[in-house]
């Protein structure tokens, strides 16, 4: 009976994690060995099915049946009803052991914060909040995650976050809106590392447009020869002009440029596109066209990276 001690330990472990108590009567060592393997497989399968990370990941990806969510959550000691925010962390260079250690210690298990790796580059931090936490506090926590990882792991990271949600059933929705925030934020916002689900601006709309519609729109604005990118000097001038609410005098002053030079440049744009940027409607069309152009350009660049 050489497998008795291992069998005893395996049965004890099975009882601990499932509550099921099995009695075993084996006649030979080979039967004992087979039983031991089967019990170990059972333990592994049970752990996989009832592993917190797996469970939360299946909820996020909407691949878990919804009828027993609360029951399964209860078995895993995860509260089914609690105000939470989902932070989606993106690490361009990939997560490493140091980062995982830092996050584990930043959010120890007592804090009921769950860390769920999604891909090599992304990780979800599911953090309990207070129902009355403000947007500012939620954002502050996102900045704290970014800054701490910058300081401690010396890596560049980006974080998107969801609204406060209360039920585990809402996790899939929160994950979707946060994934969208991360994608749109990375495409349209530069120099920022924190993206809020509710501050995506017009990028949210452009991101959802099919490429052929984007291209049709650009052809409408720029004609058949749509430029890949705009001339840098022209971009600077137009950006400043839009920032200054189409005020020629102020823009010319800030750019140290004669107002007639500025007007000449704006007329050049009008010649090329038919859009007179001194008029609000045309300026708005141009602004959106530039965003669409940059979106396609960035998509193209990232496609080839």
């Amino acid at each position, binding site marked *: 009976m050489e497998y008795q001690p291992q069998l005893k330990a395996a049965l004890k472990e099975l009882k601990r994690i499932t509550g099921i108590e099995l009695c075993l009567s084996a006649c030979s060592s080979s039967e004992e060995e087979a039983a031991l393997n089967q019990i170990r497989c059972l333990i592994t399968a049970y752990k996989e099915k009832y592993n917190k990370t797996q469970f939360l990941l299946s909820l996020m990806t909407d691949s878990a049946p919804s009828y027993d969510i609360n029951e399964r959550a209860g078995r895993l000691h995860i509260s089914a009803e609690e105000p939470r925010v989902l932070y989606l962390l993106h690490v361009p260079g990939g997560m490493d052991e140091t980062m995982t250690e*830092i996050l584990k*210690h930043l959010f120890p298990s007592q804090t009921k914060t769950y860390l769920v790796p999604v891909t090599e580059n992304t990780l979800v931090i599911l953090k309990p909040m207070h129902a009355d936490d403000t947007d500012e506090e939620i954002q502050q926590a996102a900045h704290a995650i970014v800054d701490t990882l910058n300081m401690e792991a*010396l890596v560049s990271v980006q974080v998107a976050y969801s609204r406060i949600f209360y039920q585990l059933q809402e996790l899939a929705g929160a994950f979707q809106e946060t994934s969208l925030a991360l994608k749109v934020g990375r495409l*349209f916002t*530069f*120099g920022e590392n924190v993206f809020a689900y509710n501050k995506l601006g017009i990028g949210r709309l452009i991101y959802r447009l099919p490429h052929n519609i984007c291209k049709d729109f650009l052809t409408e604005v720029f004609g058949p020869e749509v430029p890949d990118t705009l001339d840098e000097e022209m971009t600077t001038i137009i950006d400043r002009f839009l920032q200054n609410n189409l005020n020629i005098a102020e823009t010319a002053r800030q750019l140290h440029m004669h107002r007639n030079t500025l007007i000449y440049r704006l007329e050049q744009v009008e010649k090329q596109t038919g859009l007179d940027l001194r008029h609000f409607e045309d300026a708005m069309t141009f602004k959106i066209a530039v965003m669409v152009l940059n979106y396609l*350009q960035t998509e193209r660049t990232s496609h080839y990276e």
Partner: protein
Amino acid sequence: MASLSLRGIDKKYPNGFHAVKDFNLEIDDKEFIIFVGPSGCGKSTTLRMIAGLEDISGGTLEIDGKVMNDVEPKDRDIAMVFQNYALYPHMTVYDNMAFGLKLRKVPKDEIDKKVREAAKILDLDKLLDRKPKALSGGQRQRVAMGRAIVRNPKVFLMDEPLSNLDAKLRVQMRIEISKLHENLGATIIYVTHDQTEAMTLGTRIVVMKDGVVQQVDTPQNLYNTPCNLFVAGFIGSPQMNFMDAVVNVAGNDVTLKIGKHTLTVPAEKKQALIDGNYNGKTVVLGIRPEDVHDDPDFIAANASSVITSKIKVYELLGAEVFLYFDVEGTQMTARVNPRTTLRTGDDATFALDMSRIHLFDKETELTITN
């Protein structure tokens, strides 16, 4: 510690936005360099490029003579302290400071030595067993600094580390950081939008706007000889007063006309106006609030630089008084002695200290006289 060289550094994002343009700076060993400017001026982006957290689009970054453009942040021998740091809640102060070294598998006795040394410098040695919850805001900030110090880096990079502290604590921490610089003999690059922090901490200040370096100089020189209107307005609190003035050159005499007031330009300033052909042109006159005097003796001695107005607001700050008034539609501030008898609504006479005026070209906004 280390010297840094930034040559022609550029940051351009894929959407064409040029965040930092042709940034050039040589930083000597043990310098305390401040990047200051309004929000969005590119100061944090530049710091993040030095840290390696942002790619450099163009130019060369060297630390101690070695090109660092493509070197990973962890291999640059730097340490950072940012605004939104978080401490490990269940760890003691000691463990918070030691954790980074443990992750890097530094031997225990070496960790202990470094942590205790840093704790001593930061006056945290009696708090090493405490957990973050039991610390004040300032103590937590010092622990965050400690985590950077124990790395013993060549360069410290700090991005608005005091922004989340209240005003009183900020003043206290400013002094601590200044002492730290002295004790460590460290090369520090510090980003802030607060010009008081910049003036009190930096050995040299880099003033930035729209991704472009405006001026690099010592705090005193920035204050006394700003190179353009932006720097003049940004450095100093309350900010410098600006008025449009028409230059009148009559032989060897140069005057400035501001509405009904005529001010005589002193000899040391007038040549630049004559040489620059400013006769009949409008320039911007800048004068700091402390150079606007209400003292009768000063007014009597400077009769050719007198302005009159009605006091709109009297603000007593204890050691000084700010008087707000209009001159030809432009709001001005005078910083005067608290013994002044002037009050809100009074007709007042002031004399400008013309030796301290700054004159700027209205079109280019560059200084004419400095």
